[in-house]
């Protein structure tokens, strides 16, 4: 078990290392650098060269990558080109806000998705299953900004129940986000619930048609005892990995949702930084998001292994 743990951990670290390389290379390929962003129109000749020397971006890319990566490991993400503040503190506030948004959506979405998944799985091809499964497809494929616009119109403008936009700023206290956070949470929850629910549904269907459930039925075990004692513990295992994938999706999905609702989170900040050409911030956010994604998936793999001994061999790949 320890060997597998270390193996998985190393694979995760390797993935993050490759991602950081891709991010660094992509940002490196962008036209303009930190100095053209700082100096703006004065960026030419002597001043540009001086600035580049000062910030050290006249040195070879590989040296800077090693420096950037080792700084990031120590928690030093560099300096924002836009306002010369340390990125770690700028990103910290927004990360907290995004975690609040994601946390609320997960707290609401995971139980709902498990419930609906089991319900539709057990009532396969009945009317309630067809209706819920169809709604789920629509919820996960219609763009977030469309859902958000419809919800803003219905609940924000027409009925006037909740504000259609978040007015809190990045450093506001958490209580300032209510009730504006309600609609963004609903949009994220809808998409997330749909993804998780579909996987749970198909895994419940698989397990319920397996030999051992049939055996239990033939033995005369009561239906609900079969469902709760025999089927669900096995059927809910794949949910762990899908929840992890969904958390990864959430980190990207929040970009559009945060922009639509003017929510001061990490995704909104990233779009602003791209417009401002604040490249160190773009790098930092991309690295944080990718590391979080890999970390969540690693945790899910280990959790799945803990519950399912069959996965505890080096050869087994996570589903």
């Amino acid at each position, binding site marked *: 078990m320890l060997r597998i743990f270390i193996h998985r951990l190393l694979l995760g670290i390797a993935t993050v290392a490759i991602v950081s390389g891709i991010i660094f290379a992509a940002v490196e390929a962008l036209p303009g650098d930190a100095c053209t962003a700082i100096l703006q129109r004065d960026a030419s000749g002597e001043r540009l060269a001086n600035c580049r020397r000062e910030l050290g971006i006249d040195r070879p890319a590989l040296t800077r990558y090693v420096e950037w990566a080792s700084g990031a490991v120590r928690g030093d993400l560099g300096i924002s080109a836009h306002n010369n503040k340390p990125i770690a503190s700028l990103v910290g506030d927004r990360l907290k806000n995004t975690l609040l948004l994601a946390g609320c959506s997960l707290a609401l979405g995971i139980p709902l998705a498990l419930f609906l998944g089991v319900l539709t799985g057990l009532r396969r091809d009945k009317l309630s299953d067809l209706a819920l499964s169809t709604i789920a497809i629509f919820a996960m494929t219609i763009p977030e900004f469309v859902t958000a616009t419809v919800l803003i119109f219905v609940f924000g403008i027409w009925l006037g129940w909740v504000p259609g936009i978040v007015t809190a700023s990045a450093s506001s206290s958490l209580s300032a986000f209510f009730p504006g956070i309600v609609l963004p949470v609903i949009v994220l929850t809808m998409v997330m619930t749909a993804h998780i629910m579909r996987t749970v549904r198909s895994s419940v269907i698989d397990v319920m048609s397996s030999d051992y459930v049939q055996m239990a039925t033939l033995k005369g075990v009561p239906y609900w005892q079969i469902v709760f004692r025999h089927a669900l513990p096995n059927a809910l295992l794949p949910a762990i990995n899908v929840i992890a994938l969904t958390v990864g999706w959430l*980190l990207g999905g929040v970009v559009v949702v945060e922009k639509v609702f003017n929510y001061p989170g990490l995704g909104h900040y990233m779009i602003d930084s791209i417009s401002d050409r604040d490249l160190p911030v773009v790098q930092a956010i991309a690295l944080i998001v*990718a590391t979080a994604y890999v970390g969540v998936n690693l945790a899910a793999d280990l959790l799945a292994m803990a519950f399912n001994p069959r996965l505890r061999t080096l050869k087994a790949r996570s589903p």
Partner: protein
Amino acid sequence: MSDGPATLVATTARPSRIVSVICEVLSRPSGFIGLFLVIAHVLLALFSPIFAPFDFKAMNANAILSPPDATHWLGTDQLGRDILTRTIMGGRQAILVTAIATPLAVAWGGLLGIYLGLAGGRLDDILMRVVDAFLALPWILKMLLMIVTFGTGVSVLIPTLAFFYGIPVIRIARAATQNIVARDFVLAARARGHSRVSIMRKELFGNVLDALMVEGAMRWSWMLLAFTSLSFLGFGVSPPTPDWGLMIADSRNFMAIAPWPAFAPVIALSSLIIGINLTADALAKALGIDRAQAAVH
């Protein structure tokens, strides 16, 4: 990752099989409605300039944000442009870009995936790490980085979408291939001494094609989501070209006083995406493929 196609075809797809698959898709209500919506949208995208009632960029200062009436059936927007015209033409860019990018994505991802599933070994290990690394970046970040580097426009968006959306296809094709490679008829071909390329062409394509077709339909829908979201954020189609994402973004500022400019593009975009997904669902059922596993986009 996948259970692969449940039904195996011994030979490559023949015309008769294609016809029977289409018939089976159409025989399901979801497939019939879905295919109808998709075909209607494609025809509209092709021919809308011919019968659009107004010029899509003609502004009318006397009819700004006017509600639906006899002249402007769906009203006008904040510049006095006809919403019906802009809605029926608003999908042209999105459909053009995604309809070219989808086959490209499925083709390169599918070929590489089949090759890796067949070859395995060190190359497979390394490339799958890279694939994982790419999938660890949210789609929007990847797209935005490319757009900032190379600018927007059709000539950038098509290769970018085709590249990024081909990466998950590698995994699907690789898994489907690995599933089939272990079966007897491929072993037999190997034992007969066929080359790798010949095995790919003769034994695998027909069987992996089913999985790829369903995957392609899904990719199309994800690409539309990405393209319209980028337009909505202001990184896609540039005005005054009519585009659903852009129209919805514009309409939000006036929603409290004039909500109608948002309705038509919302319904148009949703109906196309719903149509594609209903078709994909019916196709998956007709081919016997479990599509619940495709989650990441």
